[in-house]
C-alpha cells in the first residue's frame, strides 16, 4: 500500500488544524477532529495490513522524497512496510485512538483543550514516523519527536511546579540515551555506509562480521538509546515522574507510544543483535534486572499511578529479556498485549482519580467497586491480564517470554537462561502481588475516605466505552499468538509469530524448538510454574489486604529498613541528584564565575590594564612642546652616534 505515509500525514493535519484554529473552534470539534485523524491512521494501517496479507509477505518500501543527498550519505522520507512495522502501526494507532476518545471526556473541562489535542496528535504522528521509517535517521526524527511530545505533555499543566520539571527530566534523560544512539548511528554509517534498514540488513548478513567487536559496540550504543526511551535501568527515572502529566497521556506514553520505541528498535535491528552474543546477553540481563528491580519498588508504592509506572518499567524489562534471548517476535507480542492491558489500567486509574476528585493515594481509597462497577471490571481484567492469569492476553505473552528464557543457552554463559528465567518468575510473583494489592486497596477493602464528602462516581460513557474495548483486547489479544502447547490443543495456529518473524531475525527457532517431546514437557513445566506463581501472588495480596487487613502494618515495622528502601525507590533519584545534578550545578557556577569571569576575562582585562598603565606612564613625554621633542630627537641622535661608534670600534 503506497499511501502508508498518510498514517503520519493525517495526525499532522490534525496538528495543523487544531494548532492554528483550535482555540476558535468548539471543543467538541477539536476533540472529534483529533480522534478522527487517528482513526484515519488506523484505517490506513489496516488497509496496508490487508494489502500486505493479500500480497503474501509483500515487504516493500515507499520513498516519498529525499531529505538530503550528500553522496554517499542519502537520506529520504522512506517508509518500510513489513510485518513488524504493520503490527506496530496498528497497535499504536488503535490504542491511541481509544485514548483520544477517552481524553475527550477526561479533559473536557481543561483550559488547554486544543493545545492538549494538538500535542496528542503530534505524539502519534511522531510515533508512527518512528515505526514506519525505513532508515535510522528518519526513525531518529520520530525518536526525538516522541521525546519532545512527552516533554510537552508531561509538563502540560505548566502552571503547577512539578509537571514542567518532570517534563524536562524526561527530555534530558532521554537525550542521554539519544547521545548513545547517535554514536551508534555514526558507527553504523562509517562501517556500512548506509542508514537504510534494508541495505543495512543485507550488508550485515552478507559481510560476515559475527561477534566482531565494532558490531557489538554498535549494538550496545543503540541499546543505550533504548535504555533511555524504554525506561530501563539506569535511565528509567524519568518514567515514574512522567505521571505528572494528565492520566491519558500516561496511558499513551506507557502503552502505545514512546516507551515501546526501544523494544521496537532492538527488534528492527535484530539482524544486527543476532550477530553479537555479548550485546544480546547485555540486553537480556538489563531487561531482567530492570524487571525485578522495578517490580520490587511497585510492591510498596501508595500512589495508584506510581505502581502502574513501575509496573510498566518492569514489563518493558520482560520485553528486553525476550529480545535478549533472541525471541524478538515474543518481545513484540508482549509489547502488543501490554499495550492493551496497560492502557486499560492507566485509563481505569484515570477514571478512579476522576471519580475521586483527583485523589491518587490508595491509602485514602477502598471499596470503590460499589461506586464504579465498570471501572472495577476494567481494572480487574487489566490486573488479571498483566499478572498472567491463564487464558488472558498477558498470560500467553509472558509465558512465552519465560519459556524462551528457560530454553536459552548462550554460548558465552550457558546457564544464563536459567538465571534469567528465575528472575522472570520472581518478577511474575511480584507482579501478581502488587496488582492485586492495588485491586484490594482501591476497590474492595472498606472505604478509607469520607464517602459523603467525596461522592465517588463512575466515569462518563465516553470514558467507559473505550475502556471496554481495551478490556476485550486484554482478554483476547493473546489468542493470535498462542504458544505451541496451546496451539496444538485447541487448534488455533500462531498467527502472530510468522507475521512478525519474517521481519526479525532468529525469531523462528524458539518456537520450533518446542516441537520435541522433551521441549513440550519443559513448556508444560514452565507454564505450570507461571500459573502457580501468579496465583500465589494473588493469594498473598488477598491474604494480606483482605483477609488479614492490617497485617501489613506489622510487616512494615518488622522489616522497617528494607521497606523504607523500597518505598524510597532504592534512593536512586537522590543518588543521581547528589552525584550528578548538584555537583553539576556547582561546576557550572564555578566555571562561569571563577574560570570565565575570573581567569579568562581576568587575563584579558589585565592585559588591557597593563597596556593602559604603560600608556599613563609614557603620557608625560608627549607634552606637545616642540622644544621638548627637539631635545628627544637630539638625545636620540647622539645615542645613535655613540652606538654606531661603539659598533665600529668593536670591529
Amino acid at each position, binding site marked *: 500500500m503506497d499511501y502508508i505515509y498518510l498514517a503520519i500525514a493525517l495526525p499532522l493535519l490534525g496538528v495543523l488544524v487544531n494548532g492554528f484554529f483550535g482555540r476558535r473552534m468548539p471543543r467538541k470539534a477539536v476533540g472529534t477532529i483529533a480522534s478522527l485523524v487517528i482513526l484515519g491512521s488506523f484505517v490506513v494501517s489496516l488497509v496496508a495490513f490487508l494489502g500486505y496479507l493479500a500480497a503474501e509477505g509483500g515487504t516493500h518500501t515507499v520513498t516519498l522524497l529525499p*531529505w*538530503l543527498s550528500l553522496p554517499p*550519505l542519502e537520506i529520504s522520507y522512506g517508509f518500510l512496510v513489513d510485518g513488524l512495522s504493520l503490527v506496530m502501526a496498528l497497535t499504536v494507532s488503535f490504542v491511541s485512538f481509544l485514548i483520544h476518545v477517552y481524553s475527550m471526556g477526561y479533559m473536557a473541562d481543561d483550559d488547554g483543550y486544543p493545545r492538549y489535542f494538538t500535542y496528542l496528535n503530534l505524539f502519534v504522528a511522531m510515533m508512527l514516523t518512528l515505526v514506519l521509517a525505513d532508515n535510522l*535517521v528518519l526513525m531518529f526524527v520520530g525518536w526525538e519527536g516522541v521525546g519532545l511530545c512527552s516533554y510537552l505533555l508531561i509538563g502540560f499543566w*505548566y502552571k503547577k511546579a512539578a509537571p*514542567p520539571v518532570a517534563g524536562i527530566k524526561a527530555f534530558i534523560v532521554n537525550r542521554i540515551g539519544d547521545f548513545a544512539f547517535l554514536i551508534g548511528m555514526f558507527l553504523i554509517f562509517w562501517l556500512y555506509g548506509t542508514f537504510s534498514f534494508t541495505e543495512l540488513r543485507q550488508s550485515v548478513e552478507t559481510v560476515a562480521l559475527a561477534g566482531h567487536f565494532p558490531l557489538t559496540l554498535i549494538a550496545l550504543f543503540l541499546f543505550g538509546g533504548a535504555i533511555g526511551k524504554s525506561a530501563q535501568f539506569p535511565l528509567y527515572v524519568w518514567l515514574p515522574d512522567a505521571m505528572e502529566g494528565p492520566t491519558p497521556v500516561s496511558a499513551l506514553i506507557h502503552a502505545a507510544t514512546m516507551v515501546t520505541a526501544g523494544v521496537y528498535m532492538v527488534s528492527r535491528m535484530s539482524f544486527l543483535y543476532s550477530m553479537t552474543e555479548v550485546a544480546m546477553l547485555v540486553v537480556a540481563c538489563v531487561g531482567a534486572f530492570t524487571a525485578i528491580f522495578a517490580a520490587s519498588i511497585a510492591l510498596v508504592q501508595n500512589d495508584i499511578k506510581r505502581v502502574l509506572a513501575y509496573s510498566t518499567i518492569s514489563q518493558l524489562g520482560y520485553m528486553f529479556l525476550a529480545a535478549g534471548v533472541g525471541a524478538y517476535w515474543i518481545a513484540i507480542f508482549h509489547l502488543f498485549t501490554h499495550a492493551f492491558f496497560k492502557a486499560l489500567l492507566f485509563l481505569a486509574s484515570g477514571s478512579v482519580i476522576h471519580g475521586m476528585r483527583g485523589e491518587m493515594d490508595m491509602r485514602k481509597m477502598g471499596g470503590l467497586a460499589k461506586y464504579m462497577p465498570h471501572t472495577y471490571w476494567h481494572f480487574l481484567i487489566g490486573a488479571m491480564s498483566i499478572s498472567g492469569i491463564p487464558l488472558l492476553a498477558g498470560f500467553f505473552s509472558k509465558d512465552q517470554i519465560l519459556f524462551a528464557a528457560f530454553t536459552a543457552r548462550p554460548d558465552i554463559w550457558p546457564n544464563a537462561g536459567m538465571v534469567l528465567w528465575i528472575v522472570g518468575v520472581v518478577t511474575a510473583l511480584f507482579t501478581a502481588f502488587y496488582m492485586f494489592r492495588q485491586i484490594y486497596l482501591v476497590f474492595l477493602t472498606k472505604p478509607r475516605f469520607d464517602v459523603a464528602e467525596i461522592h465517588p462516581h463512575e466515569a462518563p460513557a465516553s470514558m467507559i466505552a473505550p475502556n471496554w474495548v481495551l478490556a476485550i483486547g486484554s482478554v483476547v489479544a493473546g489468542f493470535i499468538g498462542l504458544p505451541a502447547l496451546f496451539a496444538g490443543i485447541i487448534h488455533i495456529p500462531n498467527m502472530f509469530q510468522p507475521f512478525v518473524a519474517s521481519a526479525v531475525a532468529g525469531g523462528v527457532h524458539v518456537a520450533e524448538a518446542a516441537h520435541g517431546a522433551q521441549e513440550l514437557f519443559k513448556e508444560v513445566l514452565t507454564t505450570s510454574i507461571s500459573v502457580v506463581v501468579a496465583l500465589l501472588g494473588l493469594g498473598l495480596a488477598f491474604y494480606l489486604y483482605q483477609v488479614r487487613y492490617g497485617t501489613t502494618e506489622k510487616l512494615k515495622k518488622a522489616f522497617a529498613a528494607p521497606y523504607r528502601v523500597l518505598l524510597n525507590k532504592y534512593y536512586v533519584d537522590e543518588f543521581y541528584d547528589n552525584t550528578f545534578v548538584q555537583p553539576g*550545578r556547582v561546576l*557550572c557556577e564555578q566555571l*562561569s564565575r571563577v574560570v570565565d569571569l575570573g581567569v579568562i576575562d581576568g587575563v584579558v582585562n589585565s592585559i588591557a590594564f597593563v597596556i593602559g598603565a604603560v600608556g599613563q606612564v609614557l603620557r608625560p613625554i608627549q607634552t606637545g612642546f616642540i622644544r621638548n621633542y627637539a631635545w628627544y630627537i637630539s638625545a636620540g641622535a647622539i645615542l645613535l652616534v655613540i652606538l654606531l661608534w661603539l659598533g665600529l670600534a668593536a670591529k
Partner: protein
Amino acid sequence: MDAIIQMMANAPLLSIIIFLPLVGAILITLMNPAKSHRIKWFAFWVSIATFLISLFLLAGSGGFEKFSHIEQYTWLPQIGVSYHIGVDGISLWLVLLSTFLLPISILSSFSAIRKREKEYYILLLLMGFALTGTFVALDLVLFFLFWESVLIPMYLLIGIWGSGRRIYAATKFVLYTVVGSFFMLLAIIGLYVYSGSFGPGTFDFIYLRSHIAPPELQTWLFLAFFLAFAIKVPLFPFHTWLADAHTEAPTAGSVLLAAVLLKMGGYGFIRFCLTLFPDASVWAAPWIMGLAVISIIYGALVCAAQTDLKRLIALSSVAHMGFVMLGIFSFANTSIGQVGATIQMVSHGITTGALFLLVGVIYERRHTREIAQFGGLASVMPQYYNVFLITMLASVGLPALNGFVGEFLILLGAFRADWALGGLATFGVVLAAVYLLTMFRRVFHGECTKPENQKLLDLNVRELVYLVPLVLLMLWIGLYPKPYLSVIKPAVDRSVRAVMRIASGSVEYARSGEKAATALAQVLSEDTPGGDG
C-alpha cells in the same frame, strides 16, 4: 518575468547588493532627523529592496560550485589590489542571510530605538553594506577593508544605543577584534610579499589559491589568520568579548552580531584558511577540533549558570559555533563535516537571531533581562510562548528543525575524523537541552506571580511579521534541507578535496623564485577547464 531574471542575471548583482544599503545610508544623511518615521520606513524599504535583489542570485548561472557573479575591476594596480568579488556555494547562503536579516533588524528596532534614530538607521545600513561585502570579497585587501568596516557601525551601535556597561562592552569588542585583525593584516601583507617573490605581487584570492606557500610559511600565516577568525567565531578561550557585547548591544545589534558577524569567522576559516593554508589547516586540525569540543562543552556549562536571559543566549553561541569549528576542521575522506558547518552557520544565524529578537520583545516590555523576573509567561503571552518554544527547540537541535541538520552532519563528519572528539562533542546535544529547557521553564512555566508580568501584551503584528518568516525557515531547513545543501555541497567539496590533495603531498608547492607557479592550478584545472570564472 523571464526577461527580468535575464536582465538581473546580467547586471552587476553583487555590487548592487553591497552598495544599495550604502547609498541608502548616504541618502538618510540628507533627511530631516525630526522625521524619524520617514527615516525608519526608508531604511526598511532599502533593506527589503536589497533582499529582493539578492534573491536574483539564485536565478543566476547554474550551480555554485565555482564562483559566479564575478566582478573584477583594477583598483590599485601598483600593488596588485583589485575590486574582485564573487559568490559560490559557501558564501551564497551567508550573503542571503545578511540581506534577509537586515530588514528584520530594522523592523525590530522601530519601537525599541527612541534616540538619535537617524544615525541609528544609517549605521544599520552601513552594517549591511560591510557584512555583505565581507562574504563576497575575493581580494584580500578588499576583504580586510570590509572586515574592518563592520567594526565601526557595531562599535557605535553598542556604545550609543546599548544598555548597562555599553562603553566597556563596545571597547572590549573593538580591541579584541583589532588585535586579531592586526595579525591578519600582517599575514595578508606576508602573502603579498610571498607572491611577489615569483611574480607580480598580488592580493588576489583566486591567484593565491593556485600558488600555495610552502608549509613552513603556511604555518605562520595560518596562525595569524587563525587568531583573527578564532576571536570572531569565537572559539574558546577567545570568547569573553562576546557575552558583554551581545548582552549590552541593542536588539538589532545582537541579532546582527550573533547571526552574521560570528559567521565572518567561520566563513574566513573555510574560505581562506583551508584554501590558502591547506597543510597548516590539516596540521592544526586536531588542536582546533579540541578547542571546538571545549567550546561546545564549556560553553554549554557556562550557559547553565547564567541568570541574564540575553547573556545566556549570547554564550550559547560559543557552544553552537564550536560545532561549526568542529565541522570545518573534520578532515577525513569526506566533506560532510564542512557541509554541515556551512549549513549550521546559516541555521545558527536564523535561530539565534530569532532568540535575540524574542529577548528584545520581552525587554522592550519589561526593561529587564533577569530570568528570575519572569515566570509563568506562557499563560499571558501564548503566541510569544509558541514562537519561543519552536525557536528554543531549533536551538536544542531537535530533528525536523534546522539546528539538527547541521549538527548531525558535523558530528557525523567529526566522528569520522576523530571518534573520540566527535563522541565528546555529541554529548553537547544533551547539555544544550539542559540549559535551554531550564531557562524556558523559568521564563514561561509556573504561576505568573509578578503583577508587572500579568498584563504583558502578546506579540503584535509587526513582531509577528519579523518572527514568522524566521520560524518558517527553521521548519523549511529542518524538513527539507536538500535545496540548501545541494548548493553548498559542490563548492565545499571542491575546497576540501583540494585541501586533502595538497596535504597528502600529491601536489608540489610553488616555491619562491620558481617560475612554475602552478601547484594548485593542477588540481583546479581538472574540474575547471580554462581556469576559474
